Structures are given as C-alpha cells and as structure tokens.
C-alpha cells in the first residue's frame, strides 16, 4: 500500500493527520511515517511510475533512477532525524510544516516532468516558511516574508521556463537541458535562487538563523539540496557552474569568520558547502556528479548535526551569539562531542564522512585540470575548517567561560544528534556504504597516503593559523555587530539611493505626470468639445449643415469612384 504511493506524497498526506492525533500518537507518527517512507523507497525498483497524459502533456510524477534515489534516501533519513530532534515540540503547525516540507522535497527529486517539479517546488516554499514564522516575533515574520517572496519568485521563474520549454520542444519532461534560450535560462535561474548562487543567496542567511530551533534542522536539509539535485539533473556539465560554485565556496568564508550569530555562521558555511556540489555538477563527469551527490548526502547529515548542536545550545541557553557563549562543555558534554563530530565531518577529517565525499569532487576537479578552481576549493576547505570546524565548537563550548550553566540537551535531541554523529563516522570509516548508492559506478579509494596526508596538512595549518590569530588577538573578536552582505544593496542601499535622489526623481515624476495630465486633460477637453453635451458633434445641427454633409459625402463618394 505504502509502496504504491509516490515517494513524498506519503509524508504530505500523513501530515494532514497530525492536528487530530493525540500527543503521544503524534510523536510516534512523525518518526514512523518517514521511516515507513524510507522502507518503501528501498523496495522501489528504478523506472517510471504513474505516468499519464493530460491536456496533451506527458506527466511523469515519479521517476526513480539512481540519481534521484540517493537524494530520496538522504531526505528520508534527514526527515527521521529532524523529527526525532523535534519530538519535544508541542506546536503541531511545526510538525505539519516539517513533514509536508520533507515530503515536497522528496517529491521534487522524483519528479520526472517540470510541472510536477514546480508543484513540489512551491509546496516546499510554502511549507517551509511556517518553520520560520513559528519562531514568532517581528524579525522572524519579516524574515519569513522575504524568504517566501524569494522562494515563490523561484517557483514563478520555474513555471515560466517550463511553459516556454513546452512551447518550444512540445515536452515538459525534466531532463538534461542546454543553456541557450530563454526557457532554459529561466529554469536555470529558478534553480540558482534555491541553490543560493552568489547574489541570489541572501534569503538563506536571512531566514535560516531566524527559524525555530528545530525548524532550521529541516530547512538545512531540503531546499538547497533539492536545487543541487535539480542542477545535477538538468544542467550537468554546464561550465559556468564551475565558476559559480567556486565563487560560492570562497566568499561566504569571510562572512562566516566575522559573523557572531553561530547559526548564521552555519548558514554561510552551508552556502560554502553548496559551492562544492555546484562545482561538481559543473564539471559533469560521472565522478564529479558522484561527488556532488555524495557530498550532498554527507553534507545533509553533518550540517544537520551542527545545526542540531547549535539548536540545543540555543534551546538551553537562549542565545546563540558567539560573544555571549563559551565554556558550555561543562554543562553540555554530549552536545559538545556531537558538535565536534559534526565539525570534524564538515572539515573533512579523515575517517569522517566529509572526507570521503569532498575527496570525490576535489579529485574530479584535479582530473579535469582546473587548477585555479582547485586552489580556490583548497582555500575554501581550509576556510571551512576554520569557521565551522574550529570556530563553532570553540566559541560555543570552550573559549572564555561565559559562566553560563545549563542542563544537557533533552534526550530526544541527544538521540537525534547521536544518530547523525554515528552516520557521519560510519560513512567516513566505511566508504563503500556511500559509494555504493551513488548514481554512477565508482572505483575510488579515498584513503591513499598522499590524500590523507595532504588533507591533514591542510587542516593542521588551518588550525595553526586559527591558534596564532587567537594567541596574538588578531582574530576578529566576536562582536555584537551586523555584517553587511549583498542583501544590503536591495534592503538598504537602493532605498537609501532612492532617498538621496528622491527630490530630483520626485520633481521629474511630477513633471512627467503633469505633462501627461495636461495632455490627458487637453485630450478630454477636445473630446468634450466635440462630443460633450454642447459639443460640436452632439449639438442639434441646423438643416443647412446637415444637407451640406450629405453633399460632402455624395461628393466624396463620386470623387473616389471616378478617380
């Protein structure tokens, strides 16, 4: 029964039951349903399901192949972990939103046509915004609103592109596309927004830190990775993506280093990690695509783990500012350990999942000979270690003791973190588990001496740099500050510019309006003069002029007839 439902739809349908279930049943439900979905998915054979034709278009709501399966598996796992992490939450809106969101994300990666993809794409946007709004308060509301606008815009672009694509090719199938016409550019841009391309990325750092403790865990898993999947499906081997991805890996590092809100640091780091995947998609070789998919798989786990640990801190301490935290390892030892596991994973320490995933992409870049890109990625790897690997655990759990004492995280959070941490280590230790489910056959051994040593050198020197900077107090102190990102341009800069130029603009506008109104008034006056109550045309004409018109018309007809 469960297997016959399209993947993802099960979660969406099951989510409808959440509000009516009693509390205990609801808890079980939120975990059991994704688990059942995962079980059904494992039993699913590759192929197309439930295809139908409607209004002359071929719909393929379920397309199962190895690429979609990788994302399907990890999305289910993420949904289970996030649900366990959120077990203590009593707000059923959040549970519903989380489950619908996860279901939409799963549905999106199995969508075989662009229209189905669009439906799930928008469902993701709408469901996820409730996770931001559930935080409550003005900041979360506004942030959620900005997030929603951007996400819906992405959906609109996708739909426009899909319609154009259907016009041009007669097919709505979601397959490999080439950038070259408006349709594919629109679709590309839609994916780019959700994938947080540079200059399109601000919604991510804006909304994720504003979401609830548990909501961010959901958010970190689905939207951006669905976009990575969409790029890998639609635009593999598009060279532009290599450079876009490289830029994505590099620029968030600087923001991550100076950011004070540790969950925002993670959001920047998320952006940086996406860059690796986008580079992999851009390279487009089987190995690189494996790298992108594998990286996404591993990344969802350790990023969720990091967000969970920071969420636990926020939940217990009530703040997540680096400047107000410190010394929490005494109160939250388990959380500290889990956080360090996540940090080690994201930093790609050998024996952790990040190592075996990132290695694929880096090797693919090296094989294809992109030296500059490779150097950027190396720099970014060092940067990741710097801000996610060291900065996060250091400022939250060690550093100067803030004097804050609290309880260890709740049991369900610890369980969720434990599962994620276990998976991070397990994948890192036993790489075939991950390599076996990747889209393309792979013969790759991550644990070669050069590779391990090279990576360790990189990490050590990065650690050294951190230590030196801290020791000599050159490291940017954790300050309560607002850092300006590109969104300043449209949130403050453009308004400020408009305010500066306003008088001139206003005068010009008034002039234009005046001219237009004058013209309009003259036009209306002319109409009234002609057709108004006493207008020329509406007046009762004397017989003479009537007759004159008769003569004119007769003359006119005769003239054109004789000519």
């Amino acid at each position, binding site marked *: 029964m469960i297997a016959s439902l399209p993947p993802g739809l099960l979660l969406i349908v099951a989510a409808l039951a959440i509000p009516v279930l009693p509390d205990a049943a609801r808890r079980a439900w939120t975990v059991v349903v994704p688990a059942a979905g995962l079980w059904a998915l494992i039993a699913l054979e590759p192929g197309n399901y439930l295809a139908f034709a409607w209004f002359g278009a071929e719909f393929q709501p379920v397309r199962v192949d190895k690429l979609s399966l990788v994302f399907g598996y990890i999305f289910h796992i993420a949904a289970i972990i996030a649900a366990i992490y959120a077990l203590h939450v009593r707000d059923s809106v959040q549970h519903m939103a989380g489950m619908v969101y996860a279901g939409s994300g799963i549905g999106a990666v199995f969508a075989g046509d662009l229209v189905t993809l669009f439906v799930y794409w928008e469902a993701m946007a709408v469901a996820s915004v409730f996770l931001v709004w559930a935080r409550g308060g003005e900041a979360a509301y506004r942030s959620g609103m900005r997030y929603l606008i951007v996400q819906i815009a992405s959906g609109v672009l996708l739909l426009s592109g899909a319609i154009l694509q259907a016009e041009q090719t007669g097919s709505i199938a979601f397959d490999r596309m080439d950038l070259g016409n408006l349709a594919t550019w629109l679709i590309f841009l839609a994916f780019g927004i959700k994938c947080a391309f540079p200059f399109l990325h601000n919604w991510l750092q804006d909304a994720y830190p504003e979401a609830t403790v548990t909501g961010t865990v959901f958010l970190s898993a689905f939207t951006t990775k669905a976009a990575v999947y969409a790029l890998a499906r639609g635009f593999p081997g598009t060279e532009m993506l290599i450079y876009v991805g490289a830029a994505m890996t590099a620029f968030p590092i600087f923001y991550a280093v100076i950011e004070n809100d540790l969950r925002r640091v993670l959001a920047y780091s998320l952006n940086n990690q996406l860059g690796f995947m986008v580079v992999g998609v851009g390279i487009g070789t089987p190995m690189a695509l494996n790298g992108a998919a594998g990286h996404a798989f591993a990344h969802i786990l350790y990023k969720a783990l990091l967000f969970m640990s920071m969420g636990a801190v926020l939940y217990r301490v009530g703040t997540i500012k680096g400047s107000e935290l410190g010394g929490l390892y005494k109160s939250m030892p388990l959380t500290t350990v889990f956080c360090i596991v996540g940090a080690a994973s994201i930093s790609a320490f050998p024996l952790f999942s990040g190592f075996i995933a990132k290695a694929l992409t880096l090797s693919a870049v090296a094989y294809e000979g992109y030296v500059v890109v490779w150097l950027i990625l190396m720099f970014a790897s060092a940067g990741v270690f710097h801000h996610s690997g060291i900065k996060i655990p250091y400022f939250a759990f060690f550093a100067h003791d803030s004097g804050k004492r609290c309880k260890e995280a709740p049991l369900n959070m610890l369980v969720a973190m434990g599962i994620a941490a276990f998976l991070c280590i397990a994948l890192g230790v036993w790489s075939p588990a991950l390599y076996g489910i990747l889209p393309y056959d792979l013969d790759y051994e991550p644990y070669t001496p050069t590779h391990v040593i090279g990576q360790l050198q990189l990490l050590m020197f990065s650690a050294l740099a951190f230590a030196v900077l801290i020791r000599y107090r050159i490291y940017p102190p954790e300050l309560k500050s607002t850092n300006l990102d590109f969104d300043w341009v449209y949130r403050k800069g453009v308004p400020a510019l408009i305010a500066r130029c306003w008088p001139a603009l206003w005068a010009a506008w008034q002039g234009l309006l005046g001219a237009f109104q004058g013209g309009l008034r003259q036009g209306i006056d002319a109409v009234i003069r002609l057709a108004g109550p006493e207008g020329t045309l509406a007046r009762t004409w004397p017989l003479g002029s009537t*007759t004159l018109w008769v003569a004119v*018309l007769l003359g006119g007809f005769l003239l054109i007839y004789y000519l």
Partner: protein
Amino acid sequence: MTAHLPALQVVLTLLAAPACILVRGRDLAFLLALSTTWAAFAVSCLLLDQVLTTGTISYELGGWAAPFGIEYRVDALNAFVLLIVSGIGAVVLPFTPRSLLIEMVGEKAYLFYCAFLLCLTGLLGVAITGDAFNLFVFLEISSLASCILISLGPHRRALTAAFQYLVVGTIGATFIVIGIGLIYGATGTLNMNDIAERLPATGYNRTVIAAFAFLIVGAAIKLALFPLHFWLPKAYTYAPSTVSAFLAATATKVGVYVLIRFLFTVFGVEFSFEVLPTALPLMVLAVLAMFVASTIAIFQDSVKRMLAYSSVAQIGYMVLGLSLVTVDGLTASVVHLFNHALMKGALFLAIGCIAYRQASFRIEDFAGMGRRMPWTMAAFTAGGLSLIGIPLTAGFISKWYLILAALAADEPLIAALIVISSLLAVIYIWRVVEAAYFREPPPGAPTGEAPAALLVPTWLLIALNVYFGIETSLPVGVAEHAARALMGAGP
C-alpha cells in the same frame, strides 16, 4: 391563399389604415390596428417559413409579368426583415393604449393608429418589393407617416424634430429616386432582378456610377450612417417613447436592408466592391459611428437621447459587418439587425414605462429608480446588458459573430475596435444603472410601477433578448442563409 401571402403582407395594414379613420372610436381603432398588425406578423412568419422551405418567392402583383408589372420578391433576407418589422409592430402596439401618448391625443387616437399602420405598411413594402421605384414609393409612405408619429411627442420640440426628419428624409428619398432614375435611364428597367441582369451588359459607365453614389448616400441618410445621422437623435428623443421604440427597432433596419439590397443584389458584389472602392469608406464611417456616437452617448444628460446616439453607434456595427464583404460579415450584420431591434425596442419601451411616471429622462432624475420602479428598471438594465454584449444576451451573439467575422477576414484591428467600443457602451449604460441603483431617490419622487399593459411587452422583448442569446438557430440560421444567397455562394 398562401400564394397571395406577399400581397397580403402589405395590403392588410394598408387597408386597415383608412379603416381606422372610418371607425373613429378609440378602442375600435386600436383593436383594428392590433388585429391587422398581428395578422401581418402571422403573414410574415408564414412567408419566412415558406421561403426557408421552398426558396425565393416571386409574386407578380395583379398578374402583370415581371419587368413591366410590379414584382414582390421574397428571399431569406427580406422575409427576415419583414419578420422583424411586423414582429416589433406586434409587440409595441399593445403598449400604446395605456401609454402617455394616447392619453394625450385623446379622441384623435384613431389618427395615431392610422399613421402607425401606414408607417408599418411603408416599411413592410420597402422590404418586400422587388421593384426599385415601388421601393421609393413605400419609403415615402413610411417617411411621411413616421413624421406624423414623431410630431406627436409631448414636447414642442417634437415639431421641429419632425420637420427636420421630414426634410432630411426627403433628401434621402430624393437621392434614392435620382439614383433609380439614372439606372432606369441606363438599363430601361425598374425591376431589381432585371437591373441586376442588364447592368453588366450596359457597362459600368458614369451614369451607373453616379446612380450608385446617389443610392448609397440616400440609403446612408435613411439608415442614419455617421455623419448623416443628425436627424436621428433629435427625432428619437422628442418622439413619444412608443414611437421611438418602434422606429428605432424598424426604420433604420429597413434602411440597412435597402443598402444591402442595392449593394449586393442590384449592383452585385463585383461592381459594388471590386470595381468601385466602397468597402473601405463604409468601414471607416462605421468605425467612426461606433466611436463618435458612443462617446457622445457617454456625455448625454438625457437617457433617451443617449439611447438614440447608441442607435447610431449600433448601426455602425451593422454597416461594419457588411463592409467586410464576406459571408461571415454579412451574417453578423443581419444577426445584429435582428438583435438590435430586440434590445433597442426593449430599452425604449422601458423608457416608455418611465414616461408613464415622470416626464423627465435626465439621468439625475433616474436616482433611486431601481427602488421606485423595480420591474421597469430591471428590464432597462437587462436591455442595457444586451446592448453591451454580455454573454447570455442577444447582444453578445451579435458581437461574437461580428468579431469572428472580422478575425476571419484578417482584420484583427477591427475586432479589437469592436471590443473597445463595447466598453464605451459599458460606460453609458453604467451611468444609468449607477443612478438607478446606487443613489437615494429624491424625496417626493414619483414612485410606483408602470401598469402591466406597459410592462408585459417590455418584458416580452427582454425575454426574447435572453432567449435569442442562448438559442440562436433562428437568427443565425436565417442570416447565414441570406448572406450566402447575397454573396452568390448559393442558398
């Protein structure tokens, strides 16, 4: 009996007219007029049925053979026009005894009925005859009779309006008779069919071209084509509402019929549109009529005058259809001929109901009319919706076919203009609706519904508007039949 139906169509009302004077009595005259009008309607129904089943009827009056005697020739087009004219007569006439008009003329009501019957005779005669000169004679009969009818208006200006109508109408008739005379000179015959056969042989010399121009302009005056429409708003405004309803629904329609008959049957499509460039000037004038007259209507204070200008605009649609010179365009024209008779008839009758309660037709005096005369105002609104062309009304069908015809003729601009000009109709109808339903009635305003004798004919026409907005087989079927015949594409 059925063989003489064409003669009966005209003779019934022609003989009843003097009989009205003989019987004198107000009610007797009414009954006589009513029975003959209804009989004429029955005859035209039978004629249409006969034409549709057996084809064109040729009737030789007095048994004189065609080119020398007068021939009545009934095909789908004029059978349809006969139906419209006699049908509107049959609906409007029951309206008269309770209308203000008869209250006013009092004991001389029989003269009104006589004039009404004569006018009806003239219009029916114009439509039925196959003889060009006979057409002129009937045109004069209808002109003079309608002149009398217009002069019966409650306002003194009705007299000047009637006078102007008389003069302009006479000019139009004169032009037509000049045209007929020239053709007679060129071909030596007055029978329309005969003219059509002989014209190609005589060649298209200057005489024929001049005749053509005179006939076009003459017909244009009769049908009030912009810019020769000046007589119409005044006449319709100051005439009694009943008369306005009757004339608006029939007289201009017969004018359009005359134009179509001369363009398509007598001179033929080839001469009218291929040898001479007639289509473009007609199209330009039609579009101007649609826009200028609608714009003027928007600015009118008097609802009745507004409706009169709206008629000028609607005539633009009819001429526009035929100026496309396609079967589709002609079909749209003829369909609109029918539908416009229904909607304008209904609207003017609603005005007649209002006239029963108050003398003023100014828009500000319509304030709160929706509550003061709910049935009347509902009828007016329904008729207005039909005029705009809202779906499920007859007006929609007209506009629909017209737009389709314009698109089929590869004139998307024309189609767009039709839609835009319909929006102007929304404005002028909305002004009335707004006053009637969204303004408080002034204190002491006359309140109370019009009597049933007035409401029933009005609502009958409204019902027909809705009926023919849904079930279109009659007008569209007949119009297509007629259009095919006229375009020479066979029945």
